[in-house]
């Protein structure tokens, strides 16, 4: 009711605009305060144990999806690949980590082949249902299998931006351009 009254008052009275967005610098959504990204150990597409903490000192772009995804994942990964390329030498300080929501089909070999098609430096993560469910819970990721023959999933489609200290600083919703990633990653790389 209070919100309704405030909205009505704003609409009817035309309250003065103070302008907002002060302090907002990233294109992505910002968490305040930033929390430490929960660590995990999964099977990496590079053949090793994939631990997030392995990438301390780098900016990590963390996403969730599956290799059979026909709509969202290919666009997101192509965008991340374009951003990674645009970063040039700075790209070596950035790591893309993509965790599957479809462990039945996405083994390490399949993920490596799929991700290499976008950028050979991208690392995928897979594991048991229980392992992956625990990671999704830690990161607030929704994933649900869609009834049908193709075994598709609906899933959270954003990318977490994790700074060099391993803190979740921001969340980039699906649909942002590569330039926005370059902008934000450059800022995170430059920030203390």
């Amino acid at each position, binding site marked *: 009711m209070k919100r*309704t009254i405030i*909205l*009505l008052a*704003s*609409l009817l009275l*035309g*309250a*003065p*605009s*103070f*302008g*907002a*967005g002060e302090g*907002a610098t990233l*294109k*992505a*959504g*910002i*968490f*305040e*305060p930033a*929390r430490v990204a929960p660590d995990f150990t999964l099977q990496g597409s590079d053949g090793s144990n994939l631990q997030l903490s392995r990438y301390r000192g780098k900016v990590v772009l963390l996403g969730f999806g599956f290799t059979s995804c026909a709509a969202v994942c290919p666009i997101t990964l192509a965008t991340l690949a374009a951003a990674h390329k645009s970063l040039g030498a700075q790209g070596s300080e950035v790591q893309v980590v993509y965790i599957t929501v479809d462990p039945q089909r996405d083994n390490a070999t399949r993920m490596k082949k799929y991700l290499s098609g976008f950028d050979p430096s991208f690392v995928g993560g897979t594991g048991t249902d229980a392992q992956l469910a625990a990671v999704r819970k*830690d*990161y*607030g990721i*929704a*994933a*649900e299998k869609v009834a049908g023959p193709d075994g598709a999933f*609906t*899933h*959270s*489609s*954003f990318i977490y931006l994790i700074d060099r200290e391993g803190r979740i600083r921001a*969340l980039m*919703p*699906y*649909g942002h351009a590569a330039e926005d990633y370059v902008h934000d990653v450059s800022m995170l790389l430059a920030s203390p």
Partner: protein
Amino acid sequence: MKFSRWHWLAFLLIAGVLGPLAWAALTPLQFPSREEVFEIPKGTWARRMSGDKVEILPAQIRLALGVHDVLLLRNLDDVPQVFGPTIMMPGQSFRLPFEVASDYQFACTAHLSGQMTIVVEPQPLSPWARLRWRAISLWKAAT
């Protein structure tokens, strides 16, 4: 020509309708802040555990570029909460600006549909756009 009482009544009636419409169409949209704020109050988790159905985020949120284009979520509760597209720790806020008009779909387990939509409309610059935006907002606020 002499105005009768009925003429005056009709004139006042028309002015009473056209005046607000003209105001709604011509006055630029302004808000105290560009942020649309949603907060999880302290004690929400306890209320949910006791069986209360607590709805905080609507399934659809409307924003307009340039005037009201930032979503601000705050978790004031004592436990982590899945809020909109993400999970938020106690005391944490999430501030999401929008720069492109579009419909943004987020998977959100807090809603029965499993989805939350944020409709970001272009900046309402034309009189018709302002009128439409105000009319829809009033309708949404009233229902």
